[in-house]
């Protein structure tokens, strides 16, 4: 490589536009001709002058984007006969919310206005509560099927408001944990399931979902949970996951520590 070629190639080298061979040639020239090092460093200084500190965008940017996206999805949704029937039967989220509130209101009015006597009133309130729970459960299941991640997150949060959780909801949460595209939704599903770890089905489900996880965040969260639960059955799937090729180093380290803590 001649000096003129070297001089021409400095910007190409800094911008990553040289081939592997040319990079080697360039670096070799620099090594053999240290008198040009200063010139290279000066150009590098100019190039790196653009690497200033960029502040992180605020969460408001995300909120604005997802609001825009949701609005866009609603306007582009094509009305079909099936959708129309479905909306008539199930209703959209605001409708379902309205139903829930209406049932609650009916329960309260019935409880306040009509004096059925102690036992009778209690039974009515219990029935109204039962009905509310049923609607809320239905709401959770419907929201979990929505394409919008925001709505699925909302579904998982709704689970916390339920007094009794049915097996169907537990299964839906596991399906979310194992199949949802969005990491935040999967993490929320773990948070929701944490409250029911006294049930064997939940503990077993959590153990068997370890191997399905590809996100390091979810892997770490599950590994932590297994330590809290001291779940010995989790050791085997954790070891299997560690052996996989693409596992993040930090997640791997965390899982190894968790295995030690469990044993």
């Amino acid at each position: 490589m001649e000096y003129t070629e070297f001089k021409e190639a400095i910007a190409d080298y800094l911008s990553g536009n040289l081939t592997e061979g040319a990079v080697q040639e360039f670096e070799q020239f620099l090594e053999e001709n240290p008198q040009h090092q200063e010139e290279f460093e000066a150009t590098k200084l100019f190039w790196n002058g653009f690497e200033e500190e960029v502040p992180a965008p605020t969460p408001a940017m995300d909120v604005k984007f997802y609001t825009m996206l949701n609005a866009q999805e609603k306007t582009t949704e094509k009305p079909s006969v099936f959708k129309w029937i479905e909306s008539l039967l199930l209703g959209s989220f605001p409708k379902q919310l309205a139903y829930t509130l209406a049932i609650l209101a009916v329960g309260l009015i019935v409880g306040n206005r009509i004096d059925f006597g102690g036992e009778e009133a209690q039974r009515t309130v219990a029935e109204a509560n039962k009905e509310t729970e049923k609607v809320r459960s239905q709401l959770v299941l419907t929201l979990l099927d929505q394409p919008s991640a925001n709505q699925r997150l909302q579904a998982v949060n709704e689970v916390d408001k339920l007094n009794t959780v049915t097996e169907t909801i537990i299964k839906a949460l596991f399906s979310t944990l194992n199949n949802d595209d969005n990491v935040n939704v999967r993490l929320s599903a773990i948070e929701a399931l944490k409250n029911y770890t006294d049930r064997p089905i939940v503990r077993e489900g959590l153990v068997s979902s370890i191997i399905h996880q590809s996100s390091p965040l979810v892997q770490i969260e599950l590994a932590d949970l297994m330590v809290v639960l001291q779940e010995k059955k989790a050791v085997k799937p954790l070891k299997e996951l560690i052996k996989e090729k693409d596992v993040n180093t930090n997640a791997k380290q965390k899982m190894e520590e968790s295995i030690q803590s469990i044993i």
Partner: protein
Amino acid sequence: MLQVKAGETHKLGLLYERYKKRLFGFFYKMNKDAGLSEDLVQNVFIKILKYKHTYTEDSKFIVWLFQIARNASYDSFKKSKKYMHRDIDEVGYSISGGDDVQGAIIEREDTIILKRAIALLPPEKKELIVLSKFKELKYREVGEIIGCTEGNARLKVHRALNDLKGIFLTLEKR
């Protein structure tokens, strides 16, 4: 992107998460205004939805994305008229007259001069270097974004860097 084009609008969220920081960084380096840069990121994604039918597999998504980003950046310059010719004295004043005087004193002198030189570099040249610094964007992609050949893009990046050196040396002599 092809899925978004086919009507799966919600998939745009994945693209947003993947590119939002790079886009924000691009705008911020061009205009130094975080609020405006956030608005411009939003504008880019609105435009993606509006013009999704024009996207083809022929070019990389990132090239198409930065073509839109570049237009958004120029539109905002035009609208706000923020981009005006600034001479060396004006920039010198605006930097030395900033609030962070103490920080500026501590900073090495040539770094301050370099910052002033970058501020004086015309936006179309600054943009070339900012784009070339993205790992995914080689001269070929930069050329596609700004609408010229690969060789021409290389030449323009070289010239922009030389111009920056020239401005730096002028400032240093003063």
